């Protein structure tokens, strides 16, 4: 009886420990896959110069929200992105450029004038439209055609993309504790390589959601 109780406690302890030590279920350890599958890791990122107009609906914890137009232009070969936020009237509230990791804010009208906002917005735009600079650490193609790729970041963070053009894609950004801090869903139809519907959920520093609808794709 005592032996049985000890076993139960041991099993319970083992279960707790193993659960605590297991990475989140959605995270797979990936190894470098087939070279011919590697281009699939870049399928959602435009490779040629492009521009777009999105309708953006942002909601924040506490119920705050805004609707604006987002204009973005990309030069992938230079890792260059320019991003504007406009009111429905077409007034520019925010204009910034990111080139090789360096950000230059050209215009920022309150409440979009904090460095934290500019940094956060350009980080989101990068996550959506620029692949990480390094080659993914692991990738693979599942039997149903779903691609899964993982990039390790310099600060132990990582970025994972998973999906297909038919079923849509997910981008997951994890912090050094492997907690998902940003999750993006990209759904078709894909127009000139750009998803028609994008939804980004961020959990930190403050939770917010961006819903983006493609209004005008690249020429």
């Amino acid at each position, binding site marked *: 009886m005592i032996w049985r109780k000890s076993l139960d406690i041991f099993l319970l302890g083992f279960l707790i420990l193993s659960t605590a030590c297991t990475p989140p279920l959605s995270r797979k350890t990936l190894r470098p896959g087939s070279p011919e599958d590697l281009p699939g890791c870049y399928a959602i990122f435009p490779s040629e110069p492009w*521009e777009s*107009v999105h*309708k953006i*609906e942002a909601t924040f914890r506490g119920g*705050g*929200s*805004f*609707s*604006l*137009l987002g*204009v973005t*232009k990309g030069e992938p070969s230079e890792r260059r992105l*320019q991003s*504007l936020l*406009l*009111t*429905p*009237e*077409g*007034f520019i*509230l925010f204009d910034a450029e990111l080139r090789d990791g360096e950000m230059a804010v050209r215009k920022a*009208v*309150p*409440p*979009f004038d904090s460095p934290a906002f500019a940094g956060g917005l350009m980080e989101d735009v990068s996550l959506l439209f620029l692949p990480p600079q390094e080659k993914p650490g692991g990738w693979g193609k599942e039997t149903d055609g779903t691609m899964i790729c993982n990039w390790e970041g310099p600060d132990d963070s990582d970025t994972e993309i998973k999906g297909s053009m038919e079923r849509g894609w997910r981008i997951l950004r994890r912090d050094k504790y492997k907690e998902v801090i940003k999750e993006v869903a990209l759904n078709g139809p894909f127009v000139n390589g750009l998803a028609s519907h994008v939804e980004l959920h961020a959990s930190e520093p403050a939770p917010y959601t961006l819903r983006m*609808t493609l*209004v*005008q794709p690249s*020429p």
Partner: protein
Amino acid sequence: MKQFVFLSVLVTAGFLFSEIAPAQDGTSLKEASRNIRSVKADFLQKRFLQILTKPLLSEGRLFFYTPDSLRWEYLNPLRSVMLQKGNSVQIYNFSEGKWKPEMTQAVEARRMVLAELSQWFQGRFNESKTFKQGYSPGPPARVTMVPGEGINRFIQRIEIVLSARPGVIDRVEIEEPGGSRTSIEFRNVEINSSFSPEVFEKP
């Protein structure tokens, strides 16, 4: 109220100018304005930005009732409406299936932008010391407004293109330094038609 100066002046001056087109001078403006009670129109706004090869298109409609009631509404791609009735100004965005009042900070941002615009458009066109006016009989007839020192940092020129139909303007062109410009084309313009005063109160 300042924030609507741009739109109010744009609408009233635009239509009033079109009304006085036959008279072809600004001194007839006040006289012509007596005949204007209301304006209703659809519009297509084309925002030309240097970043974009194609203009950003927005569609909307407006209702105006003298002296200071205005509904300026965007229908596509964003649904947004600005309502002015007297001194009361409200801004709503259509989001997640319902109209939501614009978040305070965002309103402030837009007020700031619109206030900036209002600086360009202080006063009536024919009384403006800020803009130098010119009239070209065309066709199409055009009223050109060129700002003076200071305001020309934000705007280079406004051109109001008049329709051959009395009381109707075809479009307003606003040129900014740096190459960006906005064109607003008016369609289905109705002068002095009747509509519910509720259009200025509810989104």
